[in-house]
């Protein structure tokens, strides 16, 4: 996967992962991919809902050692 940007949102509490992701994705072009790392347990539901509403695509998500990783394609 061709990732344009990696966002470290580890340790941040709600609503910061979404606020940071929004800021970061604003700087991308349509079709580019951002990789997000978070530790907030709600991030999975939050990011999925947020991406859907904003017309972005959540390509993939993983969980490893308590770190949630997401790949979102800007729509």
């Amino acid at each position, binding site marked *: 996967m061709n990732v344009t940007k990696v966002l470290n949102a580890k*340790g*941040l*509490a*709600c*609503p*910061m992962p*979404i*606020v940071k*992701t*929004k800021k970061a994705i604003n700087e991308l072009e349509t079709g580019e991919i951002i990789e997000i790392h978070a530790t907030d347990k709600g991030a999975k539901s939050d990011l999925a809902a*947020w991406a859907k*509403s*904003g017309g972005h695509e959540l390509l993939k998500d993983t969980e490893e050692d308590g770190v949630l990783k997401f790949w979102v394609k800007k729509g």
Partner: protein
Amino acid sequence: MSDRKKTTIVLFSGDYDKTMAAYIIANGAAAYDHEVTIFHTFWGLNALRKDTQVPVNKGFLEKMFGKMMPRGADKMRLSKMHFAGMGPKMIKQVMKKHNALSLPQLVEMAQEQEVKLIACTMTMDLLGLQKEELLDGLDYAGVAAYIGDAEEGNVNLFI
């Protein structure tokens, strides 16, 4: 007219925890690219107060109100388990541990995200608060301005 969705919140409460909930929702909605309005009325106005004393001319009752109400977001009380001030101290410590933003930081973040913060002028008069005592960058309005935003709103809350 813009096609962005709108979130409108009436903040009536002057409690730290309730105000925090309002500002977390507002910041979340702003990240959703909503146009967000928080209409501060009654005790909710205290979230907008500067934390320093600002010399202004006012009557005796208004002065008393000013002294009895929290001066700024950081000095607000908890709605539950206030414990004469121990509650807020404890919760702020826990919030730091969990890396949650403090209420003043949430207010700042909301302003950065261009959340429209409205101070209700009618209740400002009742509580004796003047513009000079409130944060910079606020809008001053009444119920009609709020309804104007809320009638196009998709999310509307009273806290």
